[in-house]
């Protein structure tokens, strides 16, 4: 019975998804109410997850469902972040669809499917579950990316994402097969037990399998050199989907990545060396791409690459003491809040067909809409890691972990990269504040996104000042 409690939020979201899909057949279902219903479902699931996490009578599980799932504070908080991402993505979608007409109830249903996949992914403790949840999430996202069939940009994005995603999926499958071949089981607990008695390096099959699985993960988090798709896909995807992908998917993947990499100390020891280079190159490649961008979504995608780099630093440093994953989770929360904040703002500022999407389109925003400009500034500062925002504390923890793990060089390179990233974050701030406005940024219709922007702006500080996740 307790086993079911930990997947309760998952059940809520999944049930919501199915219910909404069924409801979609009703003809008089208004679009606004769908959004509200889905927001409600996400909020409810969030509350349930919160209860599951906080309430004291649920003991922390080591394993559940005979080792299929694992549950710890780490996974629970990751779940919380994912659900919050879903919630705000729905807000974005609501506003987005007041200006872009290709909505249908299934859109929200797919978001919930994706969210349930992500939730499952955070908890996955077995290769089969991992594979299934990965695919649940991915398939839903593929559909969402190409949801607007009328525009070739979206179709191109889905082509790229689907093709490369499936390619990476194939890597994962092959890797899973090899791990299974090496360790004789698909369950993490048993693999771990096997590795405890046999050295990781003495089993080439296992090493090759791990390599393939990690490559699949690196692809999903857009680490160098598997990052190339992310800019194009984020650019091509509809705004709410981009926001959800950037935050939810990243959270889920990093959660499972961390769970996977701490399987065995020997294995981690091998991978740390390579992840070091991956992290460095990811950060610098992301920076280089981001600087060249004029489109905000592309810039944010590229900056997402950089943030993946920081998170990989955290992975490198993982497990110097008892693994809690607090650092990763904190960073993800900070990153998600800031990114979603920008996307909520873009949702109502973007206008019809995402008309305003480049840096130049936001000239003088501060003079017309000072509060939004201030909020966006806060998000930018948080992403850049300037105190007193959450982004700073996130970066601070990552650096602390890295230095504690004797990765001084990595920490310094991370710092250098965040210096370089100031370039494009400040560029937007400069556009908004120091240039004269050229238009009035009018917004039509009732929308929830401004509310979301403000909530997130506050939460950027709140997360920074009250680190509940640790």
């Amino acid at each position, binding site marked *: 019975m307790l086993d079911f409690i930990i997947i309760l939020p998952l059940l809520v979201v999944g049930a919501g998804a199915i219910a909404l899909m069924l409801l979609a057949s009703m003809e008089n279902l208004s679009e606004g109410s769908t959004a509200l219903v889905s927001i409600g479902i996400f909020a409810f699931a969030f509350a349930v997850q919160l209860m599951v996490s906080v309430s004291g009578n649920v003991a922390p599980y080591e394993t559940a469902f005979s080792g299929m799932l694992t549950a710890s504070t780490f996974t629970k908080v990751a779940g919380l972040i994912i659900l919050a991402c879903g919630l705000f993505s729905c807000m974005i979608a609501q506003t987005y669809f007041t200006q872009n007409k290709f909505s249908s109830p299934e859109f929200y249903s797919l978001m919930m499917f994706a969210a349930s996949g992500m939730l499952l992914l955070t908890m996955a403790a077995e290769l089969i579950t991992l594979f299934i949840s990965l695919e649940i999430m991915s398939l839903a996202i593929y559909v969402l990316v190409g949801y607007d069939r009328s525009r070739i940009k979206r179709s191109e994005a889905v082509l790229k994402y689907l093709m490369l995603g499936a390619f990476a999926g194939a890597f994962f499958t092959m890797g899973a097969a090899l791990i299974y071949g090496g360790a004789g089981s698909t369950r993490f607990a048993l693999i771990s037990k096997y590795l405890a008695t046999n050295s990781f390096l003495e089993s080439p099959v296992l090493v090759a399998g791990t390599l393939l699985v990690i490559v699949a993960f690196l692809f999903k988090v857009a680490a160098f050199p598997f990052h190339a798709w992310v800019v194009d896909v984020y650019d091509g995807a509809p705004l709410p989907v981009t926001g959800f992908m950037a935050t939810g998917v990243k959270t889920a993947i990093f959660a499972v990545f961390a769970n996977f990499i701490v399987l065995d100390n020997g294995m981690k020891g091998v991978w740390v060396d390579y992840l070091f280079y991956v992290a460095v190159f990811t950060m610098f490649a992301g920076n280089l791409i981001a600087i060249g961008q004029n489109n905000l979504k592309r810039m944010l995608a590229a900056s997402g690459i950089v943030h993946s780099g920081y998170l990989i630093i955290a992975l490198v440093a993982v497990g110097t003491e008892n693994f809690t994953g607090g650092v990763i989770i904190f960073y993800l929360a900070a990153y998600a809040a800031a990114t979603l904040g920008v996307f909520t703002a873009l949702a109502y500022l973007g206008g019809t067909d995402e008309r305003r999407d480049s840096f130049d389109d936001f000239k003088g925003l501060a003079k017309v809409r000072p509060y939004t400009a201030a909020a966006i500034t806060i998000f930018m500062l948080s992403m*850049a890691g300037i105190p007193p925002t959450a982004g700073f504390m996130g970066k601070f923890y990552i*650096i*602390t972990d890295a230095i504690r793990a004797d990765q*001084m060089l990595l920490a*310094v390179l991370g710092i250098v990269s*965040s210096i370089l990233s100031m370039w494009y974050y*400040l560029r937007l701030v*400069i556009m908004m504040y120091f240039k004269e406005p050229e238009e009035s940024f009018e917004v039509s219709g009732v929308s929830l996104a401004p509310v979301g922007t403000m909530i997130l702006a506050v939460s950027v500080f709140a997360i920074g000042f009250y680190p509940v996740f640790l």
Partner: protein
Amino acid sequence: MFENTLSIMIFLPIVAGLALMVLPVGREAARAAGLVVAVLVVILGLKVFINFTGAGGLEFVEKTSWFAYVGVNYSLGVDGISLLVLLAGACLFPMVYLLLKTKSKGFYANLLLTQGAMIGAIAAADMVLFYIFWEVMLLPIFFMIGLFGGPNRLPATLKITLYTIAGSLLMLAAIVYVGVSYHAQAGVWSFDIAELSKLSLTGPAATAAFIFFMVAFAIKIPLFPFHTWLPDAYTEAPTAATFVLSAIMAKIGVYGVIRFVLPIFAEDFTRYALILCYSGVIGMMYCGIAAIGQKDFKRMLAFSSASHMGIIAVGVFCMNLQALTGTLYQIVAHATSTGVLFLLLGIIEERMETRTISDLGGIAYKAPIFAVFFAVAMLASVGLPGTSGFIGEFLIILGAVKFNMMVGVLAGTTLIIGVCYMLWMFQRVFFEKSNTRTEGFKDLSAIETLTILPIVVLIIVMGIYPQPFLARITPAAAEHLAAVSTVQQQLADTTVPVMEQTTQKN
């Protein structure tokens, strides 16, 4: 009453600034509000100064646990090192509100924010807290330059922001390194400055951390050759922001060196002190000579300020009591003198709508009070005895002579270099014949006179009767140096046996 004076000093301006941003108030109301807050902060600052006992150690301590996971506390306190910096940060702001007018509401909000953050950085007794305020104090400056600055403000604001953020992010790595080292040694997490000061770190990683700290502070001070952001930023910034930058923010850089680098990296500091000294004196000479080549009044003062910061920094690197005390004293002395200079320049700029030196002339005849105030500040800036500038510069040169004769001689040239450009400027702006432009220059009004008068009097009082200030800072400075001198002693002890060993081998 007021158990948490420091917190009030920090958050009163910050809250007021945020409120001004959000609330729909007019420009004059904002200015009045800013003035009221600034005056309140002055009162609190004086209260701290007067009640400060100077017994050594932190006073006015506040401490609340914050990020228990890594031992970060919200803790504040003042000791002899920070007292005078705090005083400068607290007491100079009312002038800005009273003297400079044509700015918008947002400007005053930013000014309030930056004041709060600066006081926070000065009063922070926790390294991470210090870092947070350190970064926060830059942001309002960024907006002030970018929104209200001169024609070339964009590159200037980008330059200062990127420079300082680059430096401070590197410092973050160093701070974390120090914290982690403490954790490794003591087994518990703490970023408490007093605790960390007990560390004495050595080794390559420590050297790297030392360099990061120094780069951050060198950019802020600025030390040669990290000064290149300064002329542009000072020139393009609205005068109030220039005032903040030069009078207080630069001093926090020096303060940081004394507070963090000196005790924690005593060994590296000792090792590289000579290089740093030369960096300071070369910067002093370089900027001082550059000042004479300037056509823009403000740019000239900017270089002048950089030049003086060089000499102030030298006082730290000399690592003896006289020089360190001189630096701490000079922090306030220079803040007052350069602050007055920039503010008076701001008045010239507002009234004449030009800053080009050759456009001005004969102001002394039109505005004698203005000229007298300017002259007093200028003389303090060149270190004339009887003004505050002399005490600091004399102590620094005295200490530098002890540290290294060459450094002492070069540091002493500040006496000459300073007067060269200052007199040259004074001649062309205040003397010679007045022209059609300066013909209508109005002298200071009664309010303006009364605003500047206390600072001018302070400049002179600090030159004649500095003991109340010195007595409060000397014990802390001595205590601070005690750690360094043991390290110096150890270095001296260890080098001797090594030499003996080598001779024995041979």
